């Protein structure tokens, strides 16, 4: 534990840019992300995409792990309601999302740090917009303190 504290100095404010974990479902949002690429849309290099088959695979543990490892925010992307490739996975994702938000509120984690968006395969533009917006919001909010506070057992 103590060792980790050392490696964990907050980067200087100037150098810091948000790092956002993006968890996208294979069929809609990941495809939209490809489309944004093919269409050469531009957005900030703040996201890191992890692909899952369906947003229904979203395990709250992924989110907590990401926060505790240093994610400034997490973006979950799935198919629009009614459009999930597996029929209903995204509803389950939505339920978990709202419960995690509730938990985050109690933990004093800003709700903006976890965002869920339904982005269909054709909405490359929307994807780029969402990432742009989110980057702006998180930049304003500042670096997440979670990793530091988790590692740093204050006495």
């Amino acid at each position, binding site marked *: 534990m103590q060792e980790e504290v050392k490696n964990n100095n907050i980067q200087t404010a100037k150098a810091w840019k948000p790092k956002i974990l993006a968890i996208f479902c294979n069929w809609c949002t990941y495809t939209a992300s490809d489309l944004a690429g093919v269409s050469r849309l531009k957005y900030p290099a703040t996201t890191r995409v992890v692909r899952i088959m369906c947003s229904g695979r979203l395990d709250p543990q992924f989110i907590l792990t990401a926060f505790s490892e240093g994610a400034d925010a997490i973006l979950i992307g799935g198919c629009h309601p009614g459009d999930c490739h597996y029929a209903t996975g995204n509803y389950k994702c939505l339920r978990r999302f709202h*419960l995690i938000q509730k*938990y985050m509120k109690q*933990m004093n984690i800003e709700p903006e740090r976890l965002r869920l968006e339904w982005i269909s395969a054709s909405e490359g533009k929307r994807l780029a917009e969402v990432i742009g917006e989110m980057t702006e919001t998180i930049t304003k909010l500042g670096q997440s303190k979670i990793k530091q506070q988790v590692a740093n057992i204050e006495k």
Partner: protein
Amino acid sequence: MAVYWGAACGGCCVSVLDVHETLLTVIQHADLVFWPIALDTKYADVEAMEDKSIDLTLFNGAVRNSENEHMAHVLRAKSKILVAYGSCAHMGGIPGLANFSTKEELLSRVYDESPSTVNPDKVRPQHEYKVPEGTLEIPNFYEDVCMLDQIVDVDYYLPGCPPQTERLVEVFLAIVSGAQLPPKGSVIGVSERAQCEECTRIKSDNRSVDRFYRPWEIEDDGVSCFIDQGVICMGSATVGGCGVRCVKGNAPCRGCYGPVPGVTDMGAKIMSTIATALNAEDENDIIKAIDSIEDAAGTFYRFSLPASKIRRKIQ
């Protein structure tokens, strides 16, 4: 053998006493060298002991202040086997819920705000206080509650709030009999699977929950699974070993035994299960149903907040 309590309610020590006449068997095999609630051994006596001179230490309670931490280090050094005994030492336990507050919030509640407090001078405990006779010291109150293994190396964990006394006896006898001990770091006295395996309540094949209730809000039918009735039960995410004590007493499991092996964050995992069990599909209905869960974080992390991924409220 030693028994020590850190930030604890005392229940764990009582659970040791609960061995009743088996205590005689215990002391046949071991001398009790240190046990603050029963013996008059002083800290200095323990500090003076040789390293590794205690065969077995049961450390119960979380680490909350400098005294707890100091004794954790001392006992680690003096003990061959250090067991995190009970939920608080294992995962932070109920005292760990203090991680939902800051140190300042706690102190101001106790020394300023609470209705029974009369403290016009706003006196706060000081770590050191000079009196004519010299300097008085009281332990430093930490910002965070920690579980034992965040402070020192732990050999085994014996979970429970408090642990099942039978389990303690088994473990103790195993150690003294020189039987093959489980690998270091094991959680002992637990089953391999969640509570549900032993729970005899009837679980529905078509679980579909409209909303959640606090246990007193519904009339428990006594036979069906709590979750199916809309009451949050931690049993499915909690490792067995206690004999489903709470559910047998018609109270839902609160999760004191900790997670099933392989689960990294017990609260997150059960959140996933609980949210999934809802049947709402419309976003507003979902929000309403989720709203029916009172104190979500406190419920899902009742015993394990310091052990969770995000171990405290972020400041």
